[in-house]
């Protein structure tokens, strides 16, 4: 929850203001953020982490060559489930798949993903907030307006996380982020493995993000932290963390392959394509 210690106001106004601040504090990006002291820095560190969207990495890969993004599309044949933890992980991965589809400029794939986003949001009980974005995705797909589709996928993910945080489902919001990161990273490792170079592999140097996800899972409530899928994700992330730590001077192709295999294995489990 928001830390209010940074700003103190006197008297009645103080009471009112603090109430107001807590009202508009909505987690990761809204309102007051949590802060902690930091070593060697005369100020405060904002605890919130903004996770890059897959497109940020894809755009670099495009500059380094011409990946065949259509080959990287995985499809959205996801498990039929009412398990909200699994649904949240799936939601993140489906939105990330949307970014792959945008990169591939595959209209049909974008439309399939847009419809899947609607179905998943209904299963999660958040379709009211997601529907306008999903409709915008479908409309923009009709016009082949790729920048607009990319923007809507970014907005969709943010809206879902914000809505979950409003519903006090912060752990599920984290699952959305993790699912998205796993799918994006699987696509990146696949592209890098097909045409390995140090520059491409360096894009996987993301220890802060992996540490953030591992830390987030450790802070989750018992029921979600002990969920079979979340336990598997935590283990997988720790193995990725270990590879990243070893690869300070640069990744080997084996290291990239290993990260990719871990991500793909976890995505298969999330989608119900393998036994957990």
């Amino acid at each position, binding site marked *: 929850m928001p830390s209010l210690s940074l700003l103190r106001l006197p008297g009645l106004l103080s009471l009112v203001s603090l109430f107001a601040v807590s009202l508009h504090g909505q987690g990761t990006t809204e309102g007051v953020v949590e802060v902690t002291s930091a070593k060697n820095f005369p100020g405060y560190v904002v605890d919130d982490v903004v996770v890059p969207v897959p497109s940020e990495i894809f755009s670099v890969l495009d500059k380094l060559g011409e990946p065949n993004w259509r080959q990287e599309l995985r499809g959205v044949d996801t498990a039929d489930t009412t398990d909200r933890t699994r649904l949240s992980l799936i939601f993140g991965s489906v939105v990330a798949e949307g970014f792959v589809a945008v990169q591939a400029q595959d209209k049909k794939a974008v439309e399939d993903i847009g419809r899947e986003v609607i179905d998943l949001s209904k299963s999660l009980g958040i379709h009211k907030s997601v529907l306008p974005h999903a409709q915008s995705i479908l409309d923009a797909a009709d016009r082949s307006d790729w920048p607009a589709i990319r923007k809507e996928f970014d907005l969709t993910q*943010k809206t879902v996380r914000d809505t979950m945080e409003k519903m006090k489902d912060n752990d599920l919001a984290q699952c959305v982020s993790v699912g998205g990161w796993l799918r994006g990273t699987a696509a990146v490792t696949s592209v890098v493995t097909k045409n390995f170079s140090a520059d491409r592999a360096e894009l996987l140097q993301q220890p802060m993000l992996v540490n953030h996800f591992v830390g987030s899972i450790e802070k989750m409530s018992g029921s979600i932290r002990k969920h079979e899928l979340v336990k598997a994700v935590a283990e997988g992330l720790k193995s990725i963390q270990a590879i990243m730590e070893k690869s300070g001077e640069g990744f080997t192709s084996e290291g990239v392959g290993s990260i990719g295999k871990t991500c793909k294995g976890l995505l298969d489990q999330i989608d119900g394509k393998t036994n957990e």
Partner: protein
Amino acid sequence: MKHLTLLLAIALTFLPGSLHASVDDAHSFAMEAATPFVSEGFIVREDYWNGEVKSGQKLMVKHQLFKGNEYAFWLGTANEDCKLEIEVLDEKGNKIHITPKIGIGPTFTSVRVNPPKTGTYSVVFSVTSKTEKGVFWALAYGYR
């Protein structure tokens, strides 16, 4: 006492909205800073950081950047008469940002970054008001 309760009730009814608008305004000003960058091909991220802080208090955000992209960070505030400062540092504390000629105004400022390598960078910023004890801020970014 009755009057105080009434005053409190009225304040609680109306003030949250106005303060909420202030946080949103900070983001709107950050987006105003982003506008000229968009015409240069920058893609604006929908996620951003924001909050309320003591005037002049330095804040730091840790963020993942990828070598090969150019980034821009946009800092906005809802408060008038403020000095806005922002810099981007590498892991050794070296400044790696460039101050652009665009995206600078009374309630917003910008920096550009070409990260020399992929990794975690620190964005350090402050908003100092001449009149207010506390300020609302928003930090957004984009890439191309």
